[in-house]
């Protein structure tokens, strides 16, 4: 993760119209953003379309960047808001790829870190979470965002993020271990 002052400098260059600085920003931020949006939307083509819109906004409004944000936080926040709008337009009918459907309970792995089935099970567990919990988990454990940065992306307090994560972890753990353990 880059330092805020480096991000600020980069955004200043982008705001000044420097295409090389913009390319550097794209190279840094596009892969994690596309990953995050793909997990949320369950559709990579749609995620890339949204990510393109995000970078277009960044290019056109780089001067709006606030130095208190990390570049990744600011960009993920724009992407998150666009994804939420997209999901609302779908009216809850979120597409799920066939090859990522939940694994049957009989095939659930005992060792959680070994094979593809584990990933499928985790994806299914994530899909079963309420949207906010899912986004918080993705930002925390896949994107490696600290809680204060997650709070900025989701526009919540840090306490609310901690509470979301605690509930999400309990539910996901229960899903992955095939128990109803609410420790």
């Amino acid at each position: 993760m880059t330092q805020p002052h480096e991000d600020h400098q980069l955004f200043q260059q982008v705001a000044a119209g420097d295409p090389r600085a913009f390319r550097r920003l794209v190279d840094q931020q596009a892969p994690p953003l596309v990953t995050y949006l793909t997990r949320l939307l369950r559709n990579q083509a749609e995620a890339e379309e949204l990510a393109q819109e995000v970078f277009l906004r960044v290019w056109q409004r780089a001067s709006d960047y606030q130095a208190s944000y990390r570049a990744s936080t600011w960009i993920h926040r724009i992407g998150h808001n666009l994804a939420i709008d997209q999901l609302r337009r779908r009216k809850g009918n979120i597409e799920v790829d066939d090859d990522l459907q939940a694994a049957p309970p009989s095939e659930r792995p005992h060792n959680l870190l070994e094979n593809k089935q584990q990933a499928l099970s985790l994806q299914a567990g994530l899909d079963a979470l309420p949207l906010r919990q899912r986004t918080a988990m993705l930002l925390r454990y896949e994107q490696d965002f600290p809680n204060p940065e997650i709070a900025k992306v989701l526009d919540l307090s840090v306490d609310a993020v901690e509470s979301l994560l605690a509930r999400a972890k309990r539910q996901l753990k229960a899903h992955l271990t095939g128990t109803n353990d609410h420790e």
Partner: protein
Amino acid sequence: MNDDDFKAAFRGLDKVEPSADFLRQVRSIPRTHPRDASFGVSLWHLFGVPNRLFALGLSAVTGLFVGYLTLEQETYDEELMAFMELGPDESLLPSATELEGDAP
């Protein structure tokens, strides 16, 4: 499961690689979407109009000031004033004697 277990589990998710087409299109945004030209022009115009007005005003004030300095001396030129003044026995109107003398 602790935090490390969750992190490890998330690392096991299928990798999402941005497509080459997506990256090409996004990287070319500065070329395909140049900063709003009309916005720039209008700002420049907004900046230019007061500049022109200011230049015009400055020219007028300078002209008036120079004119004031030079015309002041002309206005109070004693010779000029003397030329304009009439003596106590003088009149701009011809007297009756002068008029009769001119008659054929």
